[in-house]
């Protein structure tokens, strides 16, 4: 392993920033959700890279837990998107602003 850990961390930062821009700019709820997944994965990459750097398995276990929680989050999030779609026939995030003053 001669690739510097820092490369992986910078890659992780770039993916996280891409996911953030996606969450902030896109209107389709599904693509916003995919961008959130991208952010989660970027953080997982950073966790695994730090685990390698410190020769410690705790980082990998944390990345594993974050994958499990992401799976649960996807299930609930997609169910919410489906039920919002049934109610107002749109997946545009701007349409669901009933609680906004």
């Amino acid at each position: 392993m001669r690739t510097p850990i820092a490369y992986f961390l910078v890659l992780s930062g770039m993916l996280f920033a891409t996911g953030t821009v996606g969450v902030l700019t896109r209107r389709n709820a599904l693509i916003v959700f995919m961008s959130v997944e991208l952010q989660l994965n970027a953080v997982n990459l950073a966790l695994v890279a730090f685990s390698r750097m410190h020769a410690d398995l705790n980082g990998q276990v944390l990345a594993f837990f974050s994958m499990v929680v992401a799976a649960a989050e996807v299930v609930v999030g997609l169910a919410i998107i489906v039920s919002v779609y049934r109610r107002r026939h749109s997946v545009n995030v701007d349409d669901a602003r009933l609680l906004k003053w």
Partner: protein
Amino acid sequence: MPLDNVVFWVFAPVAVGSAIAMLLMRNAVHAALLLIVNFFCLAVMYLLLDAPFLFAVQIIVYAGAIMVLFLFVIMLLGVDRGEDLSERLIAQRPVAIALGLAIVIEVAVAVRAGVGFATKAPAGFDAANADGNTQALARVLFTKYFFPFEVTSVLLIVAAIAAMVLAQRRARAVTQAELDAVTAHEEASEPGVSG
């Protein structure tokens, strides 16, 4: 150039490129497929970082299960729907892109200051992975992290029940105002119906 460097420089641009292309896609199916490419590249990164178990989990859980679920929902909701591109906030897009670039620069500066770009031979990682990465992870997971692991199973059950409750089709709740409106309408049109 060592082999893992080559692998990194092949897959890192693909990962970033597919992530950026995902943002630019109009069609949600194309975005999902690009995200799968990105997840595979990340899986290769895990392999480079000596985490073969997470490599397998990434492909099975993310690229497999989660993205299939995404595609399933996209197909369920219809794919040919155009996206409303009007901006409700002033200059939201340029500000978002500027903030994204700021995150990249911030991470790069922090990494340079905190970790450095020097190649560092990791000491003791092979010892931590004594008889295989999966076995070593299992040892940590089922001893030190046993309670969080059990809590995770509760979380998954709750998520499954939540999905059933949220996505089931049910009769729409009728409010008292709507009932009154219907009654008033019927009363108003009573002579017309009889006549």
